[in-house]
């Protein structure tokens, strides 16, 4: 396998972007990445997108997006793994370059969620339709059940959940591309309306439009495109049972643990070596479960991490410096690539007010459904 680097990135602002269509969003992010590398060709394109088919009635995104950036003819593939579509698109691009099949590959993610679809119903299609969605469960509902199980098993409280939101909004306030670039107070979170008990509105990521794109090439070609490439040290993908009911412990995200173990093994590093991480905080409880599953905290200490400052900027292991899905926004198919971009900027020292000093090793974890799929990438500044 060849060593692979990210050499450029492009990303739209995240938010309710009424003036941009699905294709506009993709083109903006893709062209920014291509321009940054002064690249005039591509060998292939991977487009991560959960459900343009349901959100805007558009399928067949590979050729559509290649065509939209003037690259009809290039090999292009739509990648879907629910909310992990972006991360799995990145993995597909990584494998394509690592295998020697392609030399210059665009990994992108895009989602247009604010064009009038029944968002709750579309997102619920990432759950088991016959055994879960049929009975009226929603995504906040599934994570609320995970939260309640976590509270039972580990004593996690509503306040612990709220601290995750407070921390991520503090980070998001420093990110000019965030949907919610403002702080929230603990009391605001605890008083926000209940979406699905025990999860409140401010424990939940928002409905977001946006796109993100990165350019990958063999590490040995990287200097053609940038002075500061970021190496992809590892990629780990794992699955768990589709239905939450089929998991022995609903509070343990098995796929996250497994994807992390695979990535750590491939990179030859330990959780304690990671200096900055983006994890999938679609709901506050998810960040707590993910940092535990990834070994970034002790197995029962996840609930204290945001409050104690461990995972805040300036802490031992800053998590979601971008603002996370909570404050930066969560255009589902774009999220995995946007996470990689935050780590890319951190490892290049370009994260501005969010910069983690001297960060050289970073991790991004992106998850689909109620944790039925999870993909972890480990990156190194070179």
């Amino acid at each position, binding site marked *: 396998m060849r060593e692979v680097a990210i050499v450029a990135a492009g990303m739209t602002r995240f938010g309710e972007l009424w003036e941009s269509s699905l294709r506009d969003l993709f083109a903006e992010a893709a062209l920014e990445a291509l321009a940054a590398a002064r690249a005039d060709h591509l060998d292939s394109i991977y487009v991560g997108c959960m459900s343009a088919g349901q959100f805007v009635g558009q399928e067949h995104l590979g050729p559509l997006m290649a065509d939209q950036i003037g690259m009809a003819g290039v090999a292009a593939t739509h990648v879907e793994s629910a909310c992990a579509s972006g991360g799995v698109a990145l993995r597909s691009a990584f494998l394509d370059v690592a295998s020697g099949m392609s030399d210059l590959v665009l990994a992108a993610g895009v989602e247009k969620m604010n064009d009038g679809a029944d968002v*709750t119903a579309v997102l619920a299609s990432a759950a088991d339709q016959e055994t879960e969605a*049929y009975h*009226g469960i929603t995504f906040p*509902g599934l994570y609320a059940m995970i939260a*309640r199980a976590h509270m039972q098993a580990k004593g996690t409280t509503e306040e612990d959940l709220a601290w995750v939101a407070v921390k991520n909004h503090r980070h998001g306030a420093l990110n000019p591309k965030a949907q919610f670039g403002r702080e929230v107070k603990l009391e605001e979170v605890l008083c926000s309306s209940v979406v699905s008990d025990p999860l409140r509105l401010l424990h939940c990521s928002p409905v977001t439009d946006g796109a993100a794109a990165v350019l990958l090439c063999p590490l040995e070609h990287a200097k053609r495109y940038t002075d500061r490439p970021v190496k992809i040290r590892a990629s780990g993908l794992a699955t768990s049972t589709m239905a939450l*009911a089929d998991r022995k412990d609903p509070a343990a995200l098995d796929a996250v643990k497994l994807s992390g173990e695979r990535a750590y093994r491939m990179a030859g590093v330990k959780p304690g070596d990671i200096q900055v991480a983006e994890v999938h905080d679609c709901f506050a409880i998810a960040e707590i479960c993910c940092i535990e599953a990834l070994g970034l905290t002790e197995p029962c200490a996840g609930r204290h991490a945001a409050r104690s400052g461990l995972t805040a900027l300036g802490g031992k292991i800053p998590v979601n410096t971008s603002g996370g899905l909570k404050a930066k926004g969560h255009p589902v198919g774009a999220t995995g690539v946007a996470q990689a971009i935050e780590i890319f900027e951190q490892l290049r020292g370009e994260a501005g007010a969010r910069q983690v000093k001297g960060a050289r090793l970073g991790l991004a974890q992106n998850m689909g459904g109620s944790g039925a799929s999870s993909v972890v990438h480990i990156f190194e500044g070179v």
Partner: protein
Amino acid sequence: MPSPRYWREIPARYRLEAGRCRKCGKVTFPARRVCPACRGTEWEKTFLSWKGKVVTSTVVQVAPTEFQMEAPYAVAVVETPEGARLMTQVVDCEPESVQPGMEVSLVFRRIRKEGAGGILCYGFKGVPAA
């Protein structure tokens, strides 16, 4: 949901039909082709008891369009005495009272009205155990 798709699920939804793996004995609901515990493919048809215990639960306040008339409602993961787990609404009680450890009976109920025609769809729901 087109009728053949609905019809295929009737054995599980109306009768709690499940599969018991002949190799390892695991009861899987609904029945499927390959045993998730041992990958066995030989099955014996079995039926779940119409009762179980709540493993975890929530109260849905913000519901999908088809369930908006019913919100707020409790949804729970319930484990039956056979060790199978299923997701179900728990009704006929205050939604907030549905908590882990609660014993429920499963009963046959209307689940939803579907589409513009309002086609009725049925299945099981939990109620507080008698």
